[in-house]
């Protein structure tokens, strides 16, 4: 009797197609949702990887900016040594996830690091707080001599007119200069003197060059 009932149940299961609807709807939805979920997870992971690499680049740029600003702040004190900056001491650039080498650019307004992560170009830009020129002292004095007829040294001060001098310095500092991160970078302060009547006063410019 029991055997007969069991056979009957099996027969009913084989006969009944009503579960197909359940299978088609729920399993298809489950597969679709799983695919979307996994895609989102992988996308999130990839996003974090590029974010992390961008943060590393940002930290390197911030460190350079801090070094420049520190020299600028030191110019108001008497004891401000010039700095020889080494990019290589990070060690990030050799073992980094960047697809191509990190390129560094400096202008009178900002410092920029550029590289490529996952096929996308990534920048880290940091503005300087103090007045910066991407030249060495000879270049800077030569440009001032060409423009104002004076070098801007204590012995040969620039003619009065701070506004004009500031505008000119901003204009010549806008062009970017590429830097070799394998080499040391000199960061040093230099005074530009201006004649104010009988008095001569100066302000500080930070020179960045290799």
């Amino acid at each position, binding site marked *: 009797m029991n055997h007969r009932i069991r056979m009957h149940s099996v027969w009913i299961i084989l006969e009944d197609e009503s579960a197909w609807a*359940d299978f088609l709807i729920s399993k298809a939805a489950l597969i679709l949702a799983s695919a979307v979920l996994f895609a989102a997870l992988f996308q999130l992971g990839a996003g974090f990887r590029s974010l992390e690499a961008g943060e590393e680049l940002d930290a390197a740029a911030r460190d350079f900016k801090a070094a420049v600003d520190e020299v600028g702040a030191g110019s108001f004190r008497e004891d401000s040594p010039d700095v020889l900056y080494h990019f290589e001491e990070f060690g990030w650039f050799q073992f980094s996830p960047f697809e191509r080498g990190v390129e560094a650019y400096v202008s009178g307004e900002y410092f920029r690091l550029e590289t490529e992560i996952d096929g996308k170009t990534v920048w880290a830009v940091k503005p300087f707080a103090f007045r910066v020129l991407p030249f060495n002292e000879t270049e800077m004095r030569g440009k001032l001599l060409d423009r104002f007829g004076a070098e801007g040294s204590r012995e040969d001060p620039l003619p009065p007119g701070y506004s004009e001098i500031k505008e000119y310095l901003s204009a010549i500092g806008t062009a970017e200069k590429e830097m070799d991160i394998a080499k040391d970078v000199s960061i040093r302060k230099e005074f530009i003197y201006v004649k104010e009547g009988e008095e001569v006063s100066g302000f500080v410019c930070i020179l960045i060059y290799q």
Partner: protein
Amino acid sequence: MCVSSSINDHSFVSGELKGEISGNVSGKISGSISGKFPFKHSGKPFLRPFREPFRIPFRNPFSGLFRDESGVLEPQADLLSTALSVIGFVVFAVLLSQGYLGYEDRSFALENYDSVSLLAESLAGSPVLRAENPDLLSARVLDGISGTGGKVERERLFAAFSGNYVFLIDIRTRDGKWEWRIMPDDTDPAFFLEETDRIAASVPVVIELNPAESVPGTLTVVVYQPGWV
């Protein structure tokens, strides 16, 4: 009279029967059913003892797929759990992104605060704001540089800074009796009144009001959010 019967928990058969059913309905049915049946059947007695297999001969192969509602709850349970896991993931992603954005904001503010703090420290030590005594800010010099006649001094002071940070310098005594405000001449004064984001850093200073009196105070640098932020 309308009779309906659910057989084997799957097939639902209904129809109109004319006649009478006698006997105990909840128990064994005796007698026979007569009358008009709305559909064809094999001629066998319509109601059988429940334990025997029952087969409806006119049933279509996939009729259960569309007519049976008994499985409606099951796929919804699956979908519900899937939807819950997706919602959980979305909430997780949103929380993660919110946390990252908060970190970005804080690190940006902190980084700028470092720069502003550096500016404040530099200016507090600037020889432009001092007179004979190298450790004290001179009220006389501050009067001159913040007044209308101090344009050259202001230009000289701000010449050392790049135009990336637009800032003003506020110096005041601790008792609030004296206050000096130095603003760059190449920036419209209305800019400093606008409701823009600003970051400020203060350093303690000592202000020499006259050769006989020096009072404590603060030098505050307020950086206004410029275009590059």
